[in-house]
């Protein structure tokens, strides 16, 4: 059995730290750039917490026994075009 | 020998009941409302009739805001839907009228005008909601406002209201007054085929090509019922051709301009008036609703007295039928605008009158009708 793979899409991650705070195996850390990064992939036990709890659908855990490749979002946004969470409030 | 003409069904109906006949003849299958005098008979009549109409649905909502919401929802789901109200209820509906205009949701709203502001004169006639019908909802938006002067016209103009709503994907307001709504007259009931009935165009292209707010030749994009396989977004925010919010200046401008253009391009179809002896008129009365009935008699009497008087009955109030009014103003020495308000449609007449003639108003706000003799005094 291969080990689990954990992927963060930096374009969608907002660095809220939920994954890092609650992962039982401390797989994530939020970096200086305000993005989560995978720092301890081999420890992942595929507990199922991080994917449904990431508010921005930015984490993907690929269990070891499969050979799936991550599916990136079809249209990764241009970060220059879209500052997160800044829209006119009606 | 010719077959005897089938005798038409006749009925002795209130204006309000005639509205229901018109609505059903036009294919209305959904009504949501909240009771208020003097429009309530429309709702009660719908409650009786709709359960027997194929696919008919009726619901009494908790207020007029909710009524408009339900009508908008039903229309998005593909129904021809309407509501009716008066005075305070009309004020409550304004936000949703704006939403319907912005989202281009067809619907018919009948507002039976009563007297006065606020609770005012619930059982008396008025025409004080004319400007509100045009500009009651905030922001620039196109709207169609119609009126009717007698019971047969209540049928006819309700059918027209539905046809315009469907053709132009627009909310249409039919303004009646308490007199017209509560007058009982004998009318021939509409039979299938009496009226041309128009239903909104639905898209024929594959769903992935469909753009709900696309610029089209007519300016009116086709509209599928929700749930028919075209999944799209509807929002009251300013939106792009796909229906998603936008604040890009060019997209904002394009949306608003198209929404106005889709009405403006069809003035000829939309602006309905009736000319009564205006061809040679030196005095012209411009009237709508129950006042038009008094005016009709006044003009007849003026003619008998030797005055070349004429009458222009406005059945479309907005977009204001300038193309009909202006030529008359150019050629008459006096225009008289009698209304049951402090002067609302006369503002439009004065706006169009660029010094051509004298515009005189007759304004009555005491809950009583304007009588023929009151008008006759001004014109003869």
């Amino acid at each position, binding site marked *: 059995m291969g080990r689990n793979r954990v992927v963060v899409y930096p374009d*969608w991650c*907002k*660095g809220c*730290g*939920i994954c890092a*705070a609650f992962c039982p195996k401390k797989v994530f850390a939020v970096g200086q750039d305000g993005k989560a990064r995978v720092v301890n992939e081999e420890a992942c036990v595929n507990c199922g917490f991080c*994917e*449904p*709890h*990431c*508010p*921005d*659908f930015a984490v*993907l*855990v690929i*269990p070891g026994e*499969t050979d799936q490749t991550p*599916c990136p*979002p079809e*249209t990764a*946004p241009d970060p220059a075009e*879209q500052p*997160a*969470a800044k*829209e006119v*409030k*009606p | 020998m010719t077959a005897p003409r089938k005798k038409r069904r006749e009925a002795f109906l209130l204006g309000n009941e005639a509205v229901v006949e018109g609505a059903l003849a036009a294919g209305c299958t*959904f009504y949501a409302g909240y009771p208020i005098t003097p429009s309530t008979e429309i709702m009660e009549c719908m409650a009786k009739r709709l*359960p*027997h109409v194929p696919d*008919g*649905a009726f*619901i009494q*909502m*908790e*207020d007029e*805001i*909710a009524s408009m*919401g*339900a*009508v*908008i*929802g*039903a229309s*998005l*789901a*593909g129904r021809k*839907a309407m509501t009716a109200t008066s005075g305070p209820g009309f004020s409550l509906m304004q*936000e949703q009228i704006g*939403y319907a205009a912005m989202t281009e949701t067809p619907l018919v709203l009948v507002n039976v005008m009563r007297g006065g502001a606020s609770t005012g004169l619930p059982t008396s006639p008025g025409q004080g909601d004319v400007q509100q019908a045009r500009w009651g909802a905030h922001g620039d938006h196109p709207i169609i406002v119609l009126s009717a002067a007698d019971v047969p016209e209540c049928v006819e103009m309700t059918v027209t209201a539905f046809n315009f709503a469907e053709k132009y994907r627009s909310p249409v307001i039919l303004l009646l007054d308490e007199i017209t709504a509560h007058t009982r007259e004998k009318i021939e009931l509409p039979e299938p085929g009496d009226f041309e009935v128009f239903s909104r165009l639905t898209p024929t292209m594959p769903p992935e090509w469909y753009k709900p707010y696309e610029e089209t030749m007519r300016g009116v994009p086709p509209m599928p019922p*929700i*749930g*028919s*396989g075209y*999944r*799209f*977004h*509807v929002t*009251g925010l300013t939106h792009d051709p796909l229906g998603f*919010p936008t604040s890009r200046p060019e997209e904002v401008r394009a949306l608003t301009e198209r929404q106005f253009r889709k009405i403006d391009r069809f003035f000829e179809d939309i602006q309905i008036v009736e000319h009564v002896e205006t061809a040679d008129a030196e005095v012209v009365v411009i009237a709508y609703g129950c006042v038009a009935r008094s005016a009709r008699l006044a003009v007849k009497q003026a003619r008998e007295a030797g005055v070349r008087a004429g009458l222009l009955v406005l059945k479309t109030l907005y977009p204001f039928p300038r193309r009909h009014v202006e030529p008359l103003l150019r050629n008459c020495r006096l225009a008289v605008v009698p209304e049951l308000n402090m002067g609302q449609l006369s503002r439009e007449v004065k706006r169009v009158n660029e010094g051509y003639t004298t515009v005189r108003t007759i304004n009555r706000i005491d809950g009583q009708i304007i009588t023929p003799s009151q008008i006759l005094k001004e014109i003869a």
Partner: protein
Amino acid sequence: MAEITQLIHQYLRHNKKFPLVFCPGCGHGIVLGSLVRSVHALGLPKDDVVIVAGIGCSGRIAAYVDFNTVHTTHGRALTVATGIKMANPKLTVIAVMGDGDAFSIGGNHLIHAARRNIGVTALVLNNFIYGMTGGQCSSTTPEGAYSHTCPQGQLESAFDIVELTRAAGAAGVSRGTVYHVKELDALLAEAISRPGFNLVEALTPCFTQYGRGNGFKSAVEMFKWLKASCLPVERYEKLEDRTGKLPIGTFVRRDVAGLETRWANMRQALAAKKGGAA
């Protein structure tokens, strides 16, 4: 677990800009995920699902999902949802609203939708605050909590959404949180499947407009608070000291036909009577 995120991606509108418009750590995105998973679990075709949203940060959810979506006016989502459901009872209609949306400006519509049991699911994203307009109190802001319009602390008491909706007569009432997300998925799926009016209150942190002003140091802290204070209603009821605790789970399960069904039955009865008489 990769299928969770991949599944969400299948339901997102790819012509929309991502990431979501929400602030970092905003629970609204998690509710969006929950909504998608529950609809998927029920096997509902996208074409048959209508999301009717109000105005607020919560209302912004509608634009992102590839269902039939209607973003209405502030507080009025349920009225439009009612019209849609009465017009086409085959559709699954879900109204997504904020706490202000559903219980302040739209409170009247909510109790009436519950009373008449129209077959609509109300998903209320309760963050105890007006998020979108920048942090004013709502009808669910707890007594004593701070907001820009009660800078001295809220003097009014808050609605208990569950009790209010129960009293109004809803077929189903439940509460979940974005921390207890698996449970939230299940609550939503249950609510969507039950006839009549069903309300799901989802507690969702708004650090930006609520947490910051009320002693939380981060969005994560608010999730920790949800974890620590919310427990299943069955366990909650056995507690001796309930201070600071909130029950989650399903509170009301009533067996009623939706209004749209009662309407159809009435029509059928009328038609039968007419047919019989002829």
